Structure formats: C-alpha cells, structure tokens
C-alpha cells in the first residue's frame, strides 16, 4: 500500500492530465458534434450526406483505429498538429504546446470520435420533440432557422442532456486509451509505468488507478440518474 502514499504525486499528476485531456476533448467534441448535428438536419441534401457519412464512419470505427490514424497517419503526412498550439490556452494546458505531438494527436482522435456520438445525442433530442411543435411553428410561418432557434432546440435540450452526459462519461473512459499512444503521464500510462518499469506491486497501483477513474465517472453517472428521474416525474 506504500506506493499509494509514496507516489501520490504521480497518481495526482496522472489524474490531472486525464482531466485536462477530457476537458479539452469534451469542449471540442461538443462544438464539432453540434456542427455535424446541424449538417445532419439541414435542408440541403449534400450537407446532410456529409453529416451522415461522418457519423457512420466514426460510429463504426474502433477508437483504436482513429488513434492509430492520428498517431501514425498524421506524422506520415508531415503534420505535427501545430494548429492546436493556441497561444494562451497552452499556458494553462501545458501539454498542448510541447514539442511531443502525442497529446495533440490523442486530443484530435478523441474529438473526432466523440463528435459522432455527440451528434447522435443531439439529434435524438431533436427527434424527441413532438412533431406537432415543429409543424405548428411552420404553420405560423417560421423559417427553418427560426423554427430551430425558438421552438425545437429549447425543447430538445432537455431530452439531450442525459444522452450527452453518458457520451461524456464514455469519452472519459475512452481517454484511457491515449496513454497507450505515447501520451506520457496520464492515469493509464501511469499504471503501466508503475507496474512494469517501477516494479511496484500490482494491487495497490490498480486500486489507485481505479479510484482515479471512478472519481470522474461515478459522480457524473449518479448525477445523470438523478436528472433522468426528475425528468421522468416532470413528464
């Protein structure tokens, strides 16, 4: 059990890095997912096709493959994902600005992959709004944009919160994979490093790592359960 106390800073550092990548990836995926969702419900057929293709590709691909593309395909194209070195942001999230690109590659893969699921969560929210609402808005003469902005989206938001939350939880869990793709020092890579290179006993390390992930996922899950129960009563 000593490793938990001796190496507490390592565990805390891993937790902090995992939290950073999850925070950045969540924001990126929410933005990109919203864009794709707009494409998927837009009245212009080619844009709809683009959105559908995007979702079909990334929903059916293992995240591992996406990460391989990002970690080995991007360097083969000569890209170091330098566009993510955003001045200001990289002073807070120091890994964004390092010369080793793997944090940025992992971030790109997570965002691309999660955005597909975010899009589906948002779209399921839009679909949950009774069709009569949108029809009534149309019969009042609202345009597509007005219809979305004033009638459909305010209502769909409620139905989207819970699916969105579980997508984010899944993303936190998926972020464990980047540790195996060259991101040094996140929780999962810490587990590998402490047990194999550090030679520490397995059980305490496993407990420490598990607690690190459970701190992030379980409260969020409990919160979602609560929200869902309250919504069920409200309906």
């Amino acid at each position, binding site marked *: 059990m000593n490793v938990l106390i001796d190496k507490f800073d390592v565990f805390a550092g891993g937790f902090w890095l995992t939290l950073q990548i999850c925070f950045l990836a969540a924001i990126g995926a929410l933005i990109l997912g919203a864009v794709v969702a707009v494409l998927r419900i837009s009245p212009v057929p080619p844009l709809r096709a683009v959105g559908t293709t995007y979702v079909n590709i990334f929903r059916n*691909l293992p995240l591992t493959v996406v990460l391989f593309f990002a970690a080995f395909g991007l360097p083969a194209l000569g890209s170091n994902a330098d566009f993510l070195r955003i001045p200001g942001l990289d002073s807070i999230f120091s890994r964004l600005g390092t010369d080793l690109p793997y944090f940025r590659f992992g971030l790109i893969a997570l965002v691309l992959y999660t955005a597909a699921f975010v899009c589906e969560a948002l779209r399921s929210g839009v679909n949950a709004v009774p069709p009569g609402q949108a029809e009534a808005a149309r019969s009042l003469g609202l345009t597509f944009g007005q219809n979305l902005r004033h009638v459909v989206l305010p209502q769909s938001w409620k139905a989207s919160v819970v699916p969105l939350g579980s997508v984010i939880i899944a993303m936190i869990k998926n972020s464990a994979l980047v540790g195996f793709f060259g991101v040094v020092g996140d929780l999962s890579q810490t*587990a590998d490093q402490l047990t194999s290179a550090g030679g520490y006993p397995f059980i305490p390390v496993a407990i420490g790592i598990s607690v690190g992930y459970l701190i992030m996922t*379980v409260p969020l899950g409990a919160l979602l359960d609560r929200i869902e129960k309250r919504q069920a009563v409200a309906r």
Partner: protein
Amino acid sequence: MSQQSSVLYDVPGPRQRRVTLISSLVAVVVVLAGAYLFIYRPLADKGQFSMELWGPLVDPSNENFPLVWDRIGYGLKNTLIAAALAIVSSLVVGTLLAVLRIQLKSLTRRRFTGAAAPVAYLLRGLSWVLAAVTRVCVEVFRGLPVVITIFFVARGFPEFGASFDNLWYLVIGLTIYNSVVIAEILRSGMEGLPSGQAEAASAIGLSPFQTTGLILLPQAFRIMLPALISQLVVVLKDTSLGFIISYEETLNIGKQIIGVLGNPIQVYVVIAVLFIAINYSLSKLAQYVQHRLSQGRKSAGTPAPAPPPAALTSQAEGAGGV
C-alpha cells in the same frame, strides 16, 4: 421531393427549390474543394497514392498480395473469435447478474416472518449486504474504462498464478465490462415492465425465481433487443483493444504488416473499411430488428412498451465502449 423527410421545414416551393439547388451546388463545390485541399493534396504530395504503397493491398499480381491478405484474414478470424466468445459469455454472465440483482432486491424487502427473530435479522442483513456488494461491483466495473479492465486482467491474473493465452485475458476483460452493461440493460428492462406482470405472476403462484425467468426476463429481452445488438457492435469494436496485450487481432496484424511494408495510411484505411463494413451491417440489423419489433407490437394491439432509459440506450449505442 415526394416524401417529406423532416418536420422542420416545409415541402419546398419553386423558389425554395432553386435556393436549395444553388446551395447544394455550392456545398458540393466547397466539400470537394476542401477534400482536395486538405486530404488529396497532402496525400499526393507525400506520394501516398503510389502503387508501391497500395500494391500489396489491392493488386492481386503483387508478390506480397496473397501473404498480406492471408495475415489480415488471420487477424480478422482472431478478432471474430474473441468477439464471439466475449459476446456469448457476457450475455450469459450479464443475464445471471441481472437476475441475481432483481432477486436480491426482492429479498431485501422480505421480512422472513417464518423464522425466529435472530435468524430473520441475520437473513435480512445478509441479503442487504449481498445486494450492496453486487451494486458496488456493477458501479465500479461500469465506471472503469475497458482498456484498464483488460490491462488489469492481463497484468493481475499472472500475479495470482493464473496465466492463460492472451485471447482469454481479452475475453475475460471484455466480459467483465460488457456483462455489467448488459445486466444493467436487462435490469432496467425488467423494472420498466408494468408492475401488473410481476403481480399477476405471483398471484397465480409462481415463485419469485419463476416470475423472473418465465415472465420478466423474456419480455425484457424483447424490449431491449436493439440495445443488446448495439452492445454487440461495441464488443466487436472493443476487441481491437487486444493490441495492448499483444493479442494477434486485426489491428495488431496491421501493425506487423506496417512494420514490414512501411505503409501505415494504406493499411489503416483497409482495416477501417473492414471494421466499418462489419459494424455498419450489425447496426443495420439492430435497426431492422427494432423496426420488426415495433410492427409486431402494433399488430398485436398491445400498448407500446415504455422506452428504455436514455442513458442506457445511448451507452449501448456504442458510446459506452471504445
């Protein structure tokens, strides 16, 4: 546009049709230009379209072609074996776990009035503890990433002197995670059933175990079938995690091929297409089953079943795994 595709906008009139046509053309041009500038140009500049890199994968006359596809077939076979084993075992374990949790929950409500007071208290305490333990196990393994579970299984089992093939580590790791998810899907399916079902079953004298097995479980399976099939897609995708414990599944084989031929982008494109083809057809199957089920419900004249909780279905839709 004979059939209306969305309730969000009207059937377009002549002007709207013109606007849609023009914006469609603009969108196509923009998308094509973007694809050319950001995908085709960088690829072509780096010579990624050369036959040297693609040949072993697409050209049957290439000397490496049979060898490469032989290896990919081998990896695909391993992936499917691992997926099939994991699916079967997590279905079995998940069903048992769901039944166990339902039974324990009803046990905690029993007062054991037949037994003497201390025995009754002991039994009540015991069932309460067991229910709490299973609940904690479910929450823990649901909250842990699958990668970490597989990694722990592969590292932890040899520590206790139980070493198997890499295949079994992968299957055990996947089973632990997915059986918990499936158990939650089935449990919420059973709890979502009208309470009259269980009441009627106990009224005609079925034991609690019979009630679950004969009445609740079949209905839960039926309602949750689409979610269950989607969970199978997740399992199939998750087998690709075998590479971290160096199980020879498709991705690992791909890595070996890249090590020899040095064409990462091409090999990953081929593997991606394989995965998309398999998983897409599975998702289509899930949709078809859902469609069939909803039609069957309608014609039977029974009320539509309560939709499963959104958190569970969306988790089962593939976001839950990797």
